[in-house]
């Protein structure tokens, strides 16, 4: 993976394919549950597709833990997670996994 921009397009393509959306309907700010109407089984589907494409495994509940940390940092509660869970956050997470680098 050359850059985070390439990664963003790839993740958007995966998300769009899974949710049967046109890629141009998905962007970094799209919130999975609120804007894209994803359900928990869709997140699993997207996760499996990402694991298969990028060759790493999510640890059990890793995304949830990440979002909880962000929620705590932003001083919001668990119920705000749907608000926080965007395509961009997923891209950051995958970027960290495959490059070892934190997003800017």
């Amino acid at each position, binding site marked *: 993976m050359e850059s985070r921009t390439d990664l963003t397009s790839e993740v958007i393509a995966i998300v769009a394919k*899974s949710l*049967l959306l046109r890629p141009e309907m998905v962007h970094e700010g799209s919130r999975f549950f609120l804007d894209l109407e994803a*359900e928990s*089984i*869709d997140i*699993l*589907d997207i996760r*499996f597709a990402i694991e298969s494409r990028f060759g790493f495994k999510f*640890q*059990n509940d890793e995304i949830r833990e990440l979002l909880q940390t962000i929620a705590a940092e932003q001083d919001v509660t668990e119920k705000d997670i749907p608000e926080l869970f965007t395509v961009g956050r997923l891209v950051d997470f995958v970027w960290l996994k495959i490059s070892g680098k934190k997003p800017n």
Partner: protein
Amino acid sequence: MGRTALITGGSRGVGRAIALALAKDGVDHLLINYLEQDATMRALQEELENDGIRVTPLRYNLSQPDEIRQMADSVRTHTDHLDHLAHCAALTTFKPLHQVKPNQWDLVMNVSTRSFLVVVQQHLDLLKVGSSVVAVSSTGSQRFNQNYGALGVAKSALESTVRYLAVELALKGIRVNGVISGMLGGDSLPLFPEIEEVVKYTLQRTPAGRLGTPEDVAEVAVFLLTRAQWMVGQHVILDGGYCLT
């Protein structure tokens, strides 16, 4: 040569109960597949190892045929034969069938049903004459259950797969059968919407007066795997009599 068994989705619920029942029945090496819950798998491994059973945990995602192939490669490094194979892994979304989206349909089918076929195919060289296979289905394959359509359809296909493989593999001396379970209680209670109502209704219609347990299912699965020598391509229904009322 020790007795070996491979169990998909074997780390908890029905798969775990089958692992424990097979150990009790004299199997000395259990190869147990699961998706991700390492701690649950470790606890079962410790329990079995304390009883002198050899355990090989297999963390592979059965939705991916390539991972099933990798799992089979790994299994081959641990054993040159499998006496028994039990397929328990399943995954679903509980909602009306007419609202199930294509990707959700595919995922449920792939994990619950296609993986059974691919697991059997990838381990066929290890299943020798006299070996046996069992698949775990559910009563939602045969009749309507609220919010159960995705898995109900997948289980129907699973049962059909059992019948086809049973005839084809009987020629190789491998017996294939299935169990069809009704709703299980306790920790195995499915995450249905309005579960209290569903349990109440199910109990009212169940002559045996209780929900099943993973051990109820394991008892029959192990019978099919180890003793029912003339049984080929059949399913045993376990539901406390629910389907008769």
